[in-house]
C-alpha cells in the first residue's frame, strides 16, 4: 500500500502550492483589512469634519436669527407707530381737522426713518415673513448659516462607514478559515481553503464597490 515515489512527490508539490496560496491569501487579507481600516478612518474624519462644520453653521445661524429678529421687530414696531399716526392724519384730514391731522402726520414722520418700507404690502400691512427671509438671506451672504448640507455630508460619511464595516467583517471572517486551512491537511484543508477563498473574493468585491 506504499505510494510510489512519483505520487508522493506530486502530492507534496500540490501541498506546497496550496500552502503558498494560503500564505498569499493571508497576506492579501491583511492588506485588505489595512485598506479597509484606512478607508474607515478617512470616512470617520470626513464625518467629524462635516459635523463640526455643521455645528459652526448652527451656532452662526442661531446668532443670525437673533440679529434678524431684532431688526424685524424694530422695523415692524416703527411701522405700527407710523401706520397709526399716518392713518390718524388721513382720517382727521378727511374730517376737516387739519390742525390735529398735521400733528399726527408729524408723529408719523418721526417713525418713518426706522421702517424698512420695502416690506410694507400694498394694503399697508407689514410682511414679517418676507423681512425675515430677506434679512436671513443677507446674513447668509457673508456667513455659512446652513448646517443641513454639512450634516447631510456627515450622514453620507457615516453610511460609507457602515458599508466599510460590513466589508471589514467579511474580510475578518476569512482569517479563521485560512488559519484552519494552514494548520490542517487533507479534505479539511481544502474545504477551509475554498470557503476562505470565496469569502476573500466576496469581501474584496464589497470593499471595492464601497470604495468606488
Amino acid at each position: 500500500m506504499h505510494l510510489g515515489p512519483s505520487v508522493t512527490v506530486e502530492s507534496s508539490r500540490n501541498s506546497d502550492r496550496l500552502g503558498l496560496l494560503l500564505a498569499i491569501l493571508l497576506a492579501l487579507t491583511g492588506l485588505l483589512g489595512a485598506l479597509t481600516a484606512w478607508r474607515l478612518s478617512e470616512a470617520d474624519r470626513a464625518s467629524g469634519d462635516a459635523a463640526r462644520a455643521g455645528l459652526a453653521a448652527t451656532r452662526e445661524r442661531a446668532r443670525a436669527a437673533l440679529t434678524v429678529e431684532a431688526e424685524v421687530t424694530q422695523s415692524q414696531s416703527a411701522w405700527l407707530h407710523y401706520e397709526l399716526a399716518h392713518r390718524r392724519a388721513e382720517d382727521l384730514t378727511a374730517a376737516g381737522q387739519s390742525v390735529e391731522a398735521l400733528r399726527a402726520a408729524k408723529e408719523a414722520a418721526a417713525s418713518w426713518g426706522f421702517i424698512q418700507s420695502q416690506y410694507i404690502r400694498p394694503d399697508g400691512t407689514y410682511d414679517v415673513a418676507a423681512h425675515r427671509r430677506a434679512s436671513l438671506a443677507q446674513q447668509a451672504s457673508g456667513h455659512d448659516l446652513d448646517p443641513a448640507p454639512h450634516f447631510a455630508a456627515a450622514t453620507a460619511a457615516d453610511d460609507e462607514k457602515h458599508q466599510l464595516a460590513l466589508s471589514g467583517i467579511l474580510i475578518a471572517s476569512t482569517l479563521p478559515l485560512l488559519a484552519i486551512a494552514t494548520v490542517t491537511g487533507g479534505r479539511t484543508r481544502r474545504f477551509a481553503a475554498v470557503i476562505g477563498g470565496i469569502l476573500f473574493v466576496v469581501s474584496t468585491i464589497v470593499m471595492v464597490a464601497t470604495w468606488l
Partner: protein
Amino acid sequence: MTEGRGTRLRAILADGDPARAFITVMLAVMTFVTSIVILMQFDASGASAAAERQADAAALQRSEADAGGAGDQIIDYGMYRAWYEELERANWAYQRAQAVGSADAGQPLLSALSQTDSRLADWVRSNSAFLQPPFLDAQTGTADFIGYVADRATPSLRAGEQFDTANAVADQEESRSSLFVALLTVLAASLFFLGLAATISGQPRRVLIGAGLAFALVGTAGSAVLAVQPVHRVGNDAIEAVVHATAEVIQGAPNGSLVVTDAQRTHAEAAIAASAQAVALDPAYPGAWRSQGETNLSYATALYFSTAHPDVLPFVNRAVEGYRRVVNMVQPDYAVLWNLGWALYVAGDLQGSLAPTDAALKLAPDQFTLYLNRALAELALGQTDAARVSVETGLDTAASSGLGSNASFFAESDFDIGRLAELLPDQTTVLRQMLQRVREAEVSISINGQAREAPSAGSLSIVSISPVALQADGSLAAGAPVGDGATVPTTGTAGFRLTLSGTGVAGQPVAVRVRRDGLIDIGYSQLWSWPGVDSVPVDLITPYGRANFDANPGHYEIEIYLDGTLAGRFTLTVGPATP
C-alpha cells in the same frame, strides 16, 4: 475514546501538534472577533455623532423658535397696547363729545377723534394674530395672554424635547462606544497571551492558553451582550404628548392665586392626562415621567394654596413617583430635585424632602427659594433655629445673586409663606416672622443691596388712611379716613391716601408695599427719602387709578418700611363694584 479522537485530530493536522494548531486557529478566530468589536465600536461612535447632530439641529430649531416667538410677542403685545390705547382714546373722546354737547366749538374735533380712534382700533385688531379668536373673546374684549404664550411656546417646547431625547441617544451610544473600547483591551490581552503561548511549550504554555481563553471568553461574551442591548429612542407620539402636557400646564396652574378657575382646572386635567399618555406610550422616557411630576405638582400646588384647599395627596403622590423615576433614570437637573423636595413637603414627608432640596442646593446654590423650602421643612420638623438660619442664608443669597432686586421674584414665596401661615396653625407664629423677614429683606435689598439694614433710631407710623377719587380737574380728593380692617367700595376708589408721622427719620429711606389677596401689586410700590417734616401725605395710586379706573376688589395689606424695617401695617378690603 480520547486516544481515538486525538489520533483522528493528528491525522488532519499539517504538523501533528494539536496545541499549536489550536493556538493558530484561536488567534485567527479572536482576530475575527476583535475586528467585529472594532467595527461595532465605530458604529456606536458614529451613531453617537449622528444623534449629536440631531440634537444640534433641534437646538437650532429651539433658538429660532425662541427668537421668532419673542419677536412675535413683542409685536403682538405692542399691537394689543395700541388697540387698547385707541379704544381708550375713542372712549374718552366720545364721552367728552357727549359732555360738551353739539353747541360747543370743540365738539366736531372730539367726534372726529372718537371716530378716527375707533377705526384705528379696528385696524389694529384686524392686523394682529393675538387680537383674533381664540386669543380674544370678541364678546368681552378680554385677551387670553396665557393661552397665547402657551401657543407661541409650543414649537420651542417641541424642539427642546427633541434636543433632550437626541442627547439621550448620543449619551447611550457614547457609553456603548466606551464599553467596546474597554472590551477591545480585554481582547487585545487575549491575543497577546495566545500569541505568547505559541512561542513556548510545557506548563507555561498551558497557563497562557488558559489565560488567553479566559480573556477571549470575557471579551467575546461582553461584546455580544453589549451588541444585543437596544438603544432607547423616544417616539414622536410620546414627545408630542409631553409637549401638549407642558403647553396645558402653562395655562392650567396659577401661581399666587387663591382661586383655580374652571378653565384652569380643565387645562390642568388635560395636562395630567397628556403626561399619563406619554408615560403609557414610553415608560422608559424620562421626559414623560418628568411631565407626570410637573403636571401633577403644579395642579396640586395651585389647589393646595387655593381657598378651597382640597386633599391633594393623590396628585402629589403621582408627582413624587414621576420625579423619583426621573432621578432613577438619569442624572437629574436641579429643577427635578427642587420639585421632588417640594412635592415631598406637600405630601407630608418632611424628612424625605430635605435630601432632594439639599441636593438641588448643591447644584444651584444661588436659588434662594430652595433655602426657603428647606426652612419650611425644618420648621415643620420642629427645627426652628435651623429654619431661621436657612431663611437668613437664602436672603443673603438673594441679595448677592442679584435676583433679590426683582420684587416679583419674591412675590411667589411671599404668597406661599403667607398661605402656609394660614393653613398650618401650629406654625403660624414662626411663619409670620419668616414672612416679615422676607418682606423686610426685599425692601432692604431694593435700598442698599443687602438683606438687612441697621435698625433706624427714629420712628414712623401710619396716622390715617382714606380712599381717594379722581376729580374732573385731575386732582385727587380724599374721602373720610377709614379704620384698620374697614371695607371701602371699589366704585369711586381710585387709590388711597396715607398720612404718615415720623420722628427723627429725616433723610431716611421709606418704602411702601401693597399686597392684594396676598400678592404684591407693584403699581403701588414706592421708595423715597423722608423730608424734613413731621407729617407726610402719601398718595397710593396706580397708573390705572390715575386713568380713572376703580381699584381692584380684594383684601389689601398696606405696609410702610423705614430703612428696611417694617414700621406700620394697615389692612382694608375693597368691596365689589356697585351695580
